[in-house]
Each structure stands twice: as structure tokens, then as C-alpha cells.
């Protein structure tokens, strides 16, 4: 393991030369899908974290509550806190406030262009909350973190995405027609009965309401039978296969902001709580098709020892194709409150390759930060990532 000191001005110049050469050699461009939170794994993510509360507490929760409605959110909070009487244990929650309620007026076409900052922030803001036991059995400490992430600018739908969605409309029209054709073979008697009842009602609203309710119940039952029909399922599966995975990619300029704070509560005593750490991330980026350029300003504050505050300033170039991605990143790390602290840097090249759908191999090589006291460490990693979640790759709304 090499140990290199970069204290001299000459050393600083050579460091920049190394960085530029490495970046040029790696020829990184960012994937449009990187912003999409897609399938490319991010061992060395330079982006604003999707869930800053989890990151700040050092969590990768296996189970995250994602309430879909305000009622779900309320129920989740009440259940996890025993009706607001205690701190939740090992709990992780993420929610998009704007999307807790339905928005029938928002079509994908109306959301295709560049959003103004307020609209972008409204539609992309997520809040994350997490708790974890961070102490020991002798001295239990509950950690609680809360975070917010938003995109002040979030690009626009790519031309390829717009074309795919237009094609999807036609495909889904076809799926609707298939449903109609299967239902048509069964619904005749129900429709005839409704029409006869309407004629016989003679304008009597109560009789019409009864006939409508009966027809609705009949169609519900027949419709459920259609969905369960193996022949229908086979026909729909064929259409869905043609539709494929709908990857919704936005491109252009993005500006992501994340804030988070973590507190510690020894012995679960609210009165004894104190701030553990806090963080701010600001990530401007530009994405276009297979390329992206990302910069990051990241400040992590240590609530216990201010001298341990760290500030990162860096950039990443990324290029991705269907089954691989190449990127190079440079991040300079400093401790603004530590006297005599040496700025460190990380310079890495990352290659990700999809061996098989959902299985990624990632190779990372470069120079890591090293210890705060100085020095540098060789960075060499080979990893395997298994994507066992949904294969959909979608973009940020």
C-alpha cells in the first residue's frame, strides 16, 4: 500500500494533472439512467443519496415503509411509535408528500418538458426517516435520523422516452381492446338487462339506480373472471412483452439537494438526545443519452466533534450503454474545522458490466482518501451486485 503526501504546491499541480489524465483516459459519460435510479449499481455513488436519512445513520434497511396515502402514513407512524408513546425501533420510512394524493390532472405529456423549480421540487421531494440501535447492550443508544431530498431542476423527458410512451399508448389501447373482446363474450345478458330496466324505469331515478348497481356488480364479477382467464393472460402477456420495460428517462440539467440530520438518544430518553451528525448534499449534473457529468458539494457535520466535519468537492464523468458503464470520479475531501488537517482526495475509475439481467460485476481502481492524518490508500475492488428488486428502470418524476 503506497503512502503519498501531497503537501507541496508541486504535489498539488501533479495531482491535478493526474486527475485530468485519468478523467480523459476513462472517457466517462453519465448514463441518462443514472438519474433514473436505474439498474446500474453505484458502488461509488457521487450523487445525492435517494434517502439521506438512511445514509447518515449508515443504514441499508432491508424493509422500508413507503406509504402511498396520507392514511397509510398516519397508520405507519402510529403503529411504529405505539401511538406516539415511544421512539420507533429499527424503522425506515420514505415518502413523497406530493404523491400521497392522486393528481388526475397531471399527464405524462404535461410533465414532459422542463419543470420550473417550484414544480420540480414539489414533484420530486421525498422525506426519509430512520431509527436504529447504535449503542451497545450495556449502553443502548437509539439513533434517529430525518432527511429531505429534492430536485430543484430535473431535466425533461428524453426524445426516446417520449417515443416509447407514445408507442405504449397504442399498445395499451390494444390491451384494452383485448379485455373488451374477452368481456364481450360474457356481458351481453347484463347489458340487455340494464337497457330493459332503463326503458321500464320510465325516468324513475330510484329504479335506474338499482338497475345501474346491479349491472355494475355483474360487470365486476365478469371482469374478474376475464382477468383470471388463462387465455386472456396469455394474450395480455404477449402484448406486455412487446411493451417491455418502460424506462422513463429525463435528461438535461439537474440540481439535486439533500439535507439530513441524525440524533442519538441514550437509553431511549428523549431529554438526553443530542445531535450526532448532519449533512448537506448539492449535486448539479447534466445528462444526455449515454453521457452525464456530475459535480458534488457534500458537507458532513459531526455533532460531537466539530473538528471531524468533512467537506467533499468532486466530479464524475460517466458513459453507459445497454450492458456496461464506465465512469471516473475525483473527490477532494477536507476538514475545514481541523487545524493542520491535510486535504485528501479520491480518484477512481469504475467499470460496471451486466453479466446477466440484474447481475452486475463492478470493478473499481484508483486512489482512496486514506487516513485523516495523511497518506493515501490504493483502491481496488471487485464486486457483484444482484438486483433482486423490480427490473423496471424508471426515472425520477
Amino acid at each position: 500500500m503506497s503512502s503519498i503526501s501531497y503537501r507541496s504546491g508541486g504535489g498539488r499541480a501533479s495531482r491535478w494533472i493526474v486527475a485530468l489524465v485519468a478523467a480523459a483516459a476513462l472517457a466517462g459519460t453519465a448514463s441518462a439512467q443514472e438519474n433514473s435510479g436505474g439498474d446500474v449499481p453505484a458502488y461509488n455513488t457521487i450523487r445525492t443519496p435517494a434517502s439521506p436519512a438512511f445514509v447518515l445513520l449508515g443504514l441499508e434497511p432491508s424493509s422500508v415503509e413507503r406509504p402511498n396515502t396520507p392514511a397509510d402514513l398516519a397508520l405507519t407512524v402510529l403503529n411504529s411509535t405505539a401511538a406516539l408513546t415511544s421512539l420507533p425501533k429499527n424503522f425506515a420510512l420514505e415518502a413523497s408528500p406530493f404523491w400521497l394524493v392522486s393528481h388526475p390532472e397531471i399527464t405524462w405529456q404535461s410533465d414532459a418538458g422542463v419543470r420550473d423549480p417550484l414544480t420540480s421540487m414539489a414533484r420530486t421531494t421525498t422525506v426519509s426517516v430512520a431509527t436504529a440501535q447504535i449503542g451497545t447492550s450495556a449502553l443502548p443508544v437509539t439513533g434517529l435520523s430525518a432527511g429531505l431530498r429534492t430536485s430543484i431542476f430535473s431535466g425533461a423527458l428524453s426524445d426516446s422516452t417520449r417515443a416509447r410512451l407514445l408507442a405504449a399508448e397504442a399498445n395499451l389501447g390494444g390491451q384494452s381492446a383485448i379485455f373488451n373482446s374477452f368481456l364481450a363474450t360474457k356481458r351481453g345478458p347484463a347489458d340487455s338487462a340494464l337497457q330493459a330496466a332503463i326503458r321500464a324505469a320510465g325516468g324513475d331515478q330510484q329504479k335506474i339506480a338499482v338497475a345501474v348497481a346491479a349491472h355494475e356488480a355483474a360487470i365486476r364479477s365478469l371482469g374478474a373472471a376475464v382477468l383470471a382467464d388463462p387465455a386472456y393472460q396469455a394474450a395480455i402477456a404477449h402484448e406486455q412483452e412487446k411493451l417491455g420495460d418502460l424506462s422513463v428517462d429525463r435528461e438535461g440539467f439537474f440540481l439535486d439537494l439533500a439535507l439530513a440530520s441524525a440524533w442519538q438518544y441514550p437509553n431511549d430518553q428523549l431529554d438526553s438526545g443530542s445531535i450526532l451528525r448532519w449533512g448537506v448534499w448539492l449535486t448539479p449534473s447534466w445528462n444526455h443519452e449515454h453521457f452525464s457529468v456530475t459535480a458534488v458539494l457534500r458537507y458532513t457535520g459531526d455533532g460531537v466533534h466539530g473538528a471531524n466535519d468533512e467537506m467533499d468537492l468532486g466530479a464524475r464523468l460517466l458513459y453507459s450503454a445497454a450492458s456496461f458503464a464506465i465512469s471516473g470520479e475525483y473527490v477532494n475531501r477536507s476538514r475545514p474545522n481541523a487545524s493542520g488537517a491535510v486535504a485528501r482526495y479520491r480518484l477512481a475509475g469504475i467499470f460496471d458490466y451486466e453479466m446477466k439481467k440484474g447481475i452486475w460485476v463492478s470493478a473499481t481502481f484508483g486512489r482512496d482518501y486514506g487516513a485523516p492524518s495523511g497518506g493515501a490508500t490504493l483502491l481496488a475492488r471487485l464486486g457483484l451486485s444482484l438486483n433482486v428488486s423490480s427490473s423496471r428502470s424508471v426515472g425520477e418524476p
Partner: protein
Amino acid sequence: MANQVLFNKTQVYEVGGATTVSVSVTIGDGQVGGSSVVWRGATVAQGEVAGLHVDNSGGSLTGELLLCTTAVRDINPATNHTAVTYELGGGSTDQSFTYSIDVSEPGGTAIYAITFVFI
């Protein structure tokens, strides 16, 4: 096959003495969808439906059924909500009917089977 959920509704629309009704379908919540419209036993529109006109060759529309089916695919990663708005015009009053259902999983499909009965 991505799971499908079904929403069905039989909805009254007062046509009065109108001989033509217009139909438009809007997919909300940032999702993508396509429709198939059946009128008097024939498919008269498929895919995007905007300003479709149906009539009875000048005859009365009372008692006729307009069958609107819409398949909505969840593409919005922030929500499982889907919503479809059917705008009918030309009758006694122009009306909008909005229906919602959540898909059962991300990437799922919602089928809206709406029967408009004209009175």
C-alpha cells in the same frame, strides 16, 4: 405478467335530446395509458381518445351504452396511484368523471372498465 387490477363503473350520463356525444379520455398521475371504445357493438377508437363523437345516425341516444376500457401502466416511480378522467359532452351538461385505483405493484397495470348508460 405484471399484475392487473380492475376498476369498473356503470355511470349514467343524461343526454337529453342530444343526438351526438363527445368523449375524451385523460390519463393522470403521470402514468401512461390507452383506451378502447366500443359503441353499438363496434370498436370506434383505440389508443389515445380525444374528441371522439358517437351518434345513432340521428336517432335517440337514450338507452344506448358506451363502453370505455382504459389500460393504465404505472411508470411513475413516486406513486402507485392511477387516475383516468372521462369527459363527456353534448348531453344535458358536459361532465367529467374521474376514477382512481392503485396498482398492486410498481409497474403494474390498472384496467378501467366503464359503461356509460345514456338516459
